[in-house]
Structure formats: structure tokens, C-alpha cells
């Protein structure tokens, strides 16, 4: 038995955990993959920083905490998964634009989801390296 001599194991554990947690949500996985590629391109020598940043890319959040412009995926009680940007939250509905639905019928444009039908909202954060480690977010 010895120590991990790099943080690569931690990164692999994080990736496995995220794949398992969001296996039902291709929208979230898309964003995680995009951020993982960006992080690895920018700081390949710091797997520990990648491992710390990656779980911050997708966060479960309460509908009342969402703001206009937030990029989200919405899981509904009737098992639909929609990804897009919040354009409004009013009168018991959340309106999503640039809306994409995975699994079932594909749609684009606007979707209205009654908040009463909302099972979970997941907020996406892109450019996570710039937010967490701005001094390592080198211009390319």
C-alpha cells in the first residue's frame, strides 16, 4: 500500500461519479464533457484542479433560485429531459428558450414547463476554470 503519487485517480473517480450521477441527462453530460476537454487542454499538468472544478459544472438547484439567462436542464415528473436557457419564471411556469429535448421528441425554440411538473433543475456553469482559477485560464 502506498499513496497516490498524482491526482489522476481522484480525477478518474470524479469522472466516474459524474457519469453515474448524470447518466439520465445527456444535456448535463454534454456540458461536463465540453468543460472536461477545455480544462484538460488548459491545465493538463494539474489533474487535481480539473478534479475539483468538474463537479461544479452541473449543480442541482431550486427553481426559485434560477435566473433569466441561466443554462439548465429540467427533469420533469413525466420523465422528460429538456435543456436550454431560462427566459422567464412566472405564473407557475418556467419558460426555456433554445430548448432541446433528449430521448423523446426533439424540439427547439421555446418550452413552457409548469413548475408543478418539475422534478429537478440542474444549473450549468461554463468556463469553470475562469471562475475558480482565473490566473490559470490562459488565452489560447
Amino acid at each position, binding site marked *: 500500500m502506498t499513496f497516490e503519487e498524482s491526482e489522476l485517480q481522484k480525477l478518474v473517480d470524479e469522472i466516474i461519479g459524474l457519469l453515474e450521477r448524470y447518466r439520465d441527462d445527456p444535456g448535463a453530460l454534454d456540458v461536463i464533457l465540453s468543460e472536461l476537454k477545455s480544462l484538460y487542454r488548459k491545465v493538463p499538468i494539474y489533474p487535481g484542479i480539473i478534479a475539483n472544478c468538474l463537479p461544479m459544472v452541473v449543480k442541482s438547484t431550486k427553481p426559485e433560485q434560477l435566473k433569466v439567462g441561466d443554462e439548465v436542464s429540467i427533469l420533469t415528473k413525466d420523465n422528460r429531459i429538456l435543456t436550454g436557457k431560462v427566459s422567464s419564471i412566472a405564473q407557475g411556469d418556467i419558460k426555456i428558450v433554445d430548448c432541446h429535448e433528449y430521448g423523446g421528441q426533439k424540439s427547439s425554440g421555446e418550452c413552457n414547463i409548469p413548475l408543478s411538473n418539475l422534478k429537478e433543475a440542474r444549473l450549468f456553469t461554463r468556463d469553470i476554470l475562469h471562475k475558480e482559477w482565473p*490566473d490559470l485560464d*490562459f488565452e489560447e
Partner: protein
Amino acid sequence: MPELGLKRGNVIKIEGFASLHVKEGKILIIGGLHEKWAKVVVPRAKSIPIEAESDAVVECTLGPNGKMERLPGRTIPREWDTLVEEIIAKKPRIVLVLGEVDTGKSFFSTYIANMLTRKNLRVAIVDGDTGQSDVGPPTTLGVVMVDKPVVFLRDIPPRAIYFIGSMSPAGHILEFVVGIKRMVEHGLENADIVVVNTAGWTSGGPGRAFRLYEMELLEPDMIVALQRGGELEHILKSVDQSKVKRILVSKHVRSRSRSDRTFLRELVLAQYFEGAGRLILDLRKVLLERCYFRTGEPVDPKSLGDPSIIHAEKMPEGLFIVVSGELSESKAQELKAKFRNLHTISTWDAKNVIVGLADSNNELVGLGIIDEIDYVREKLAVITPVKDVSRIVAVQFGSMKITPDGKEVGTVKPGTF
């Protein structure tokens, strides 16, 4: 110029940017005695306590962000002096200073060195922090000999430096361990006591491994643990307790923000490369170290059937190629199948990579920044303050990309070159 009158025992704190000139009397700075005519410059983001050893007059000029504050009493804890007395009595050859980031390890090491120097002991300080390096430029480890009062270790020319190639030990444990051992050996050759100021990387698998193997390798006679609470105990539990001295972190130690750290690194790097020139090295004559490049059996790039390939060599790990432009996917697959693996870099990948330039004794002569590699003519152009090209026998590849004005502009994926 504002003059400041101090009574014996008065203590003030000066934050940089500031400059001091002792006009009358004697003052103590970090345990070092400074007498009439002494001048000290405090850089931005650094601060020092000053204690009047006698009634004194100090001329103090504050620059941008500079501050001066009177303190109610001495900032150096009494237990530091007790430890100094113990070191003088026991004369350990190697004193290892452990502590997390921002625990005042450099300050503590400087204090110990100044106090021991006053007792006519020869002291070397090994600086093991490549990010906030006090000895040598960032990305290096270094050793200095302290033979007179010192305020900032940076003010002493290093006796030797060792190239790590990164700001952090992460991913560079082997370079760190070899480098710290070599710097300690330099110190032992020239000093009675070597104080090793370690990097503040103490937890996590790599941090633990680094610390414990470093201690096993160096075999320090004394381990000084600077702690706020018990944050080093997980490491200290594995070592001989009779060697361990636990010291509380001074409440005067201030944390530096990430931006302050980056500023300081960039400032030191910019100063290092100020006045640097462009040297052309012949790749057929210099050794290339810490890289795959030029370690394989040369392959004629024309034989590979793609004009974008301008350099090729066969290695145990597969085919190493340098591509100018785009290599087609089908050609990449073909070469991968034929040579088991394909390692591809582009002509511009090397731009701005930091390198160590070493002499025939494998001692670091200086740092360089790759400007260009001409793979066809086998030339390497580096920006470096080193003037004498004949001293450069080896080039050691690093993992950071920087510009000559000190800006960090990228990192290099391990194994790229």
C-alpha cells in the same frame, strides 16, 4: 524624506513598496542587525517588522501601496529564540521547516539564519518553493549562503539553482526530490547548518508522498513544524518525535491572495528576463533532457508519405513526429498501426515553453524561453539572459509557457515533448 525616531524596543511594521535608510542607531530586521548607513527596499506585497536595538533614526520612504504601522511589541515569538538556542547547542546539520502555504516559512528560515549568523555559524538556506521562490527565479529550487544580515533571501545571489520547470510540485515530484537533495548537498559542502524551507504542499496523496519521501531522503536532524492547529500532525506522526519542534504560526503572518502570488511570480520572472537576448543552439551539439524529442532512432520524414511531417523518430513508445500543418486522420491511423503508437506535436507547440539551460556539470546556468525550434535545420532559438552560449551543454524541458515579460501563458501536457 520623512525621518522616524525610534526608542530602543520600539517596533514598527513596514509594508512595501517602501525604502528604509538607517541614519542613526541600530535596528533589527528579521533577527538581522542593521547599523547606520544600511539601506533596505521592501517590495510590493511584502512586509517586515523592524525592532529598534538602540535608539535609532530611520528615513522611510513609502511608495505605491506602502504602509507603516507602529506595533505594541515584538512580533517574533519567544519560542523562536528558544529554538535558536537549541540549534546553537545541538548544531543539527539539516533543519527541515514544514508548514502549509502562508505560514511564514521563509520569514522563519530567514530569522533562524540571521540569528545563527550572529553566532558565527555558517548557514545555508534551501528554498523549496518554486511558485513563491525566494532563491532563484520561479520554476527553480535554490540554495543561498547567509553570511551577513539578510532581509529578503532574493537579495543574495544563489549558490546553485535546480530547474523544476513548473510552479507547483504537482506532477513534478521526481524533479523536486532530486533537486532538493542536490541543493542540500550544496549547502552541506559550504555551511554548518542547512535550513530547508519546504513547499507548502502537505496533504492529499501526492502531498503526503512528497513530504514523507523527502524526509526519508534528506534525513533531517531537526524538523520544525509551523502550525496554526494540528494541520501537520498527519505527517509528523510518521517521524521520530525527538526531532520534531512544533511552533505556532505567528499571528502577524498574512495570507497572500492568488493575484498577489501571480503578481510576485510575474514580477520576478520579468526582472529575470529583463535584457535577455536570443541565442541559437545547435540541436546536434546540446543534450536535450526531460523529453522524448531526439531520444529515438531517426526516421526520414519523407519515407512516411506525408509532406506535413517534418521530423520523425522511432522510440520504444511508438513513432514521434513533428507536423507542420494538418496530418490527415487516415495517415495518422496508418502510422499508429505500423508503429504501435503515434506521438504527434506541431511546430508551434514549443513556443514559449520554459527550459533550463545547464552546463557540463549539469548545474543550471539559467532559464530560457523557447522562441522557435527549427526541426529541419536542427536549431533551437531561446530567449535567455545567459550570454555565453558555450556554457550551455544541456536543455531541460519544463511544463510552463511564459513570455519574456513574465506572464504565464499556458501549461504543457506531460509527455508532449
